């Protein structure tokens, strides 16, 4: 079978401390209920500088500069053990500061909803034009247009007509509402969607910068963030994918949006694999920008425990799936796990549906999978908030399921966890940690012969949408490429055998006659 391949992956982080304060839902909810709260007063003291964010070991892992195995060797807490010579540029991506990102939001805005204060706009334009990855965007020309006066921005924000944007503690811009009263086009919704679009554009531009893929060669884009764009008549109408592709110059691509909470990216990657294997499209990109709502989600616990508020970055990623090149790791489309509607919601049922059922179906043993990329949330963020070490809990569940099935001895449980696992290093941006952060590493480690395969797992909590209590989960296996590429349509060897057999039959028939 000609499996599709993973040709490349990119990863973006955007430092957004002011958005933690002004747009993170923990803070906006608190401000609504208790504007004088201690948390809101103390939070600013717990926000990190851009330099601290760049030096933070899990962030350096996310952009590909250190391996998860290397992160594991760095003593915890990681925020007290920075990587001193760390750079914002990474092997697979980059960490962008907030001012440049605000400029990028204006650049990707198609409806003149974003206003930036004139001096801020001029300064950030220079930075973006010099940026090696986004500096060539023709949309940066928008940073020459409509410079705003601070008092005009202030008036719009005070009148609840625009969502404010801050830098270095000062108001520097805003996103206006896109309709007089449409709840799907409020200033807040437009701000969230433009942040998602801009961070996805950055991620896709990074993919083009870090790999050989050219924008014009992309046939299809699947966007899989957790936002929804539309108006009051079709609230989630879409289409982020084409909006992102348009900015990035993907003139030959179309696309659509796929959603399933945190499992969205895993669904999108399986869809991308199917589309390329079927020959419908040659090059499919799966992309997602990040979320402002989740910034500082657990900051109440971080602040109470005297830690930095570590959820200060927006995440993004892009993955290129293409037809088999005989080199890149394949996606084994015959080993796709899915949590079925009838699977049940207990942890055991979920793990069985997405981990062992697909392996059993393909005749692959649990012990034959070298590595599992699960929900890769950074434990330093989740443990202080009482949510535990999410990746480790997942590895224990996989190992415990193996024990129950007889794949491993109970005494081996901790060794198995050690062998198949790695520390979490992704920001808690929902869809961002779910399986995808390891794809870049998995591709390189498989190409280097250090891994034979890896299972990528996405899980999602559908109950949050209040339409179903069902859980969700999807998995697939990346594997070393055999190097054999079958020609489309027919197998030459098979045809040769069939012709030989027909000739033999014909000869026998002649003999009988």
């Amino acid at each position: 079978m000609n499996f599709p391949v993973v040709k490349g992956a990119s990863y973006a982080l955007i430092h957004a401390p002011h958005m933690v304060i002004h747009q993170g839902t923990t803070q906006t909810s608190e401000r609504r209920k208790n504007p004088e709260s201690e948390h809101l007063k103390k939070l600013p003291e717990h926000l990190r500088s851009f330099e601290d964010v760049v030096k933070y070991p899990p962030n350096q892992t996310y952009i590909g500069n250190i391996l998860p195995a290397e992160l594991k060797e760095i003593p915890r807490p990681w925020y007290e053990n920075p990587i001193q010579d760390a750079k914002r540029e990474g092997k697979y991506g980059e960490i962008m500061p907030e001012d440049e990102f605000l400029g990028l939001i204006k650049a990707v805005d198609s409806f003149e909803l974003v206003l930036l204060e004139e001096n801020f706009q001029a300064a950030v334009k220079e930075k973006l034009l010099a940026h090696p990855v986004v500096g060539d965007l023709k949309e940066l020309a928008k940073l020459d247009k409509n410079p705003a006066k601070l008092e005009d921005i202030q008036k719009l924000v005070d009148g609840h007509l625009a969502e404010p944007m801050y830098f270095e503690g000062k108001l520097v811009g805003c996103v206006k509402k896109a309709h007089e009263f449409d709840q799907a086009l409020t200033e807040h919704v437009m701000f969230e969607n433009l942040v998602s679009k801009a961070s996805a554009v950055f991620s896709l531009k990074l993919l083009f910068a870090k790999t050989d893929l050219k924008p014009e060669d992309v046939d299809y884009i699947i966007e899989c963030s957790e936002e929804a764009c539309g108006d009051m008549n079709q609230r989630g109408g879409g289409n982020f994918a084409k909006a992102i592709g348009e900015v990035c110059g993907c003139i030959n691509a179309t696309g659509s949006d796929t959603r399933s909470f945190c499992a969205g990216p895993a669904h999108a990657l399986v869809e991308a694999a199917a589309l390329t294997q079927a020959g419908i499209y040659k090059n499919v990109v799966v992309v997602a920008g990040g979320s402002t709502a989740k910034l500082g989600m657990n900051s109440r616990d971080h602040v109470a425990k005297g830690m930095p508020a570590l959820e200060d970055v927006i995440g993004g990623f892009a993955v290129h799936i293409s037809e088999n090149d005989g080199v890149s790791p394949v996606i084994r489309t015959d080993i796709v796990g899915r949590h079925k509607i009838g699977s049940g919601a207990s942890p055991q049922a979920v793990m069985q549906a997405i981990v062992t059922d697909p392996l059993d179906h393909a005749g692959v043993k649990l012990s034959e999978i070298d590595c599992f990329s699960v929900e890769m949330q950074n434990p330093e963020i989740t443990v202080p908030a009482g949510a535990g070490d999410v990746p480790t809990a997942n590895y224990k569940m996989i190992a415990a399921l193996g024990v129950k099935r007889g794949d491993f001895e109970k005494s081996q449980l901790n060794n198995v966890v050690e062998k198949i696992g790695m520390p979490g290093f992704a920001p808690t941006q929902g869809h961002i940690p779910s399986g995808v952060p390891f794809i870049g590493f998995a591709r390189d480690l498989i190409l280097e012969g250090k891994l034979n395969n890896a299972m990528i797992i996405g899980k999602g909590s559908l109950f949050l949408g209040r339409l179903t209590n069902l859980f969700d989960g999807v998995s697939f296996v990346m594997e070393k490429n055999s190097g054999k590429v079958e020609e489309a349509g027919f197998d030459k060897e098979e045809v040769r055998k069939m012709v030989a057999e027909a000739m033999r039959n014909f000869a026998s028939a002649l003999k009988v006659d």
Partner: protein
Amino acid sequence: MDLENQARIKELAEKYGNEDLIVVLGGAEAEASGLAAETVSQGDPTFAGPLAGVSLGLKPYHIFELKDQVDESVYEDQVSMMEMVLDMDAIIEEVKKYR
């Protein structure tokens, strides 16, 4: 504890009283389970939800403590794997404090 769950538990406690009503927790971690136990017994310690300052006096149990009360095959299917995964002793010790 989730604010909506707090509201639902408050409503049930008001309807049925706290004598014949217990709360069964499925928390994966000792501290979080303890917080949930405290919320339904003494009130929401984070003062964020409907149980802030409301002491329902409900008795909380973790499902691990109720193994003998549950059909063996159901427990086997739904919970047994997690006995190997979670720190049972720490969770039970924490939840017990609030009974």
